[in-house]
């Protein structure tokens, strides 16, 4: 059920994060509600996940501008090795 604008922000954020966990199994997105909209931060594994997360947050926070500041983890090979002494 989408949150309503009359709810305190804490409850709306809690509901969005609960929905992200259940629908997308995504536990590592931070949702910050500000006067300028909802800002999403964190690192996810694929660009597709970024889009899916944004879509769910927009649905759960109707009328709120959603800013996707998520990062996608790199799968580059390591630059070198760390020697443990």
């Amino acid at each position: 059920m989408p949150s309503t604008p009359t709810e305190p922000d804490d409850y709306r954020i809690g509901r969005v994060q609960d929905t992200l966990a259940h629908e997308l199994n995504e536990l590592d997105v931070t949702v910050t509600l500000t006067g300028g909209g909802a800002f999403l931060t964190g690192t996810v594994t694929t660009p597709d996940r970024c889009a899916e997360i944004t879509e769910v947050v927009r649905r759960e926070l109707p009328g709120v501008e959603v800013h996707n500041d998520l990062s996608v983890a790199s799968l580059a090979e390591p630059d070198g090795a760390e020697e443990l002494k």
Partner: protein
Amino acid sequence: MIRVAAVADVHCGVDSAGRFRPHYEHLPEQADLFLIAGDLTRRGLADEALVMARELEDVAARVPTFAVLGNHDYHCDDQAIVAKVFDAAGIQVLEGESDTVEIDGHRVGVAGVKGFGGGFAGACGTEFGEPEMKAFVGHTRKVAGWLETSLLELATRDVADVRIALMHYSPVEATLRGERPEIYPFLGSYLLAEAVDRAGADLVVHGHAHGGSEKGVTPGGVHVRNVALPVINHAYNVYELGQQ
């Protein structure tokens, strides 16, 4: 010298075919051992495990590959099937167990356990009160005991001269730096570090804390590395143990 490649939290979905395999192509030239510290799948579905097993099968055929499961791998209650899928693909899943491999004249032992939460000194749960609270902390204490026993077996039977503890949850706070302190009790437990320090080890590898930091140390002086994919921001990291 033993070269250990490690990663965690790849969160493979059924739509992830082909995403990881190319990035492991050169791993066998860079490492002697590959450790995956949990959350191989997104929801713990057998179909997700099958996809990830295909992504790993080439590298696992060339380099000994060990894994522990993480909380995501338990989500659908199919963790036993998920573990079997990986085992069948040559990725040995450890849960309260250990195994050894011979590398460069060294016998390397890996003891693996998922671990669990509970928190750290001064801010941790105890087995007190409601059954749910006792079960929560009791589970951590139980699996930490398995870890200690596995590491001790590697030492007392003299079967390994290098010992690595592989887990999903963190044994120390240092590798959680960056996460909100309020959630530390859900990210790890000092009981895991205590088990490592009692039994002894040369390296601890874990994941789970996506917003944490890579490097830490147990109170007893054992290297700890958080290899969660969002933390290392590479397909894997490589750690060198021992003198060349």
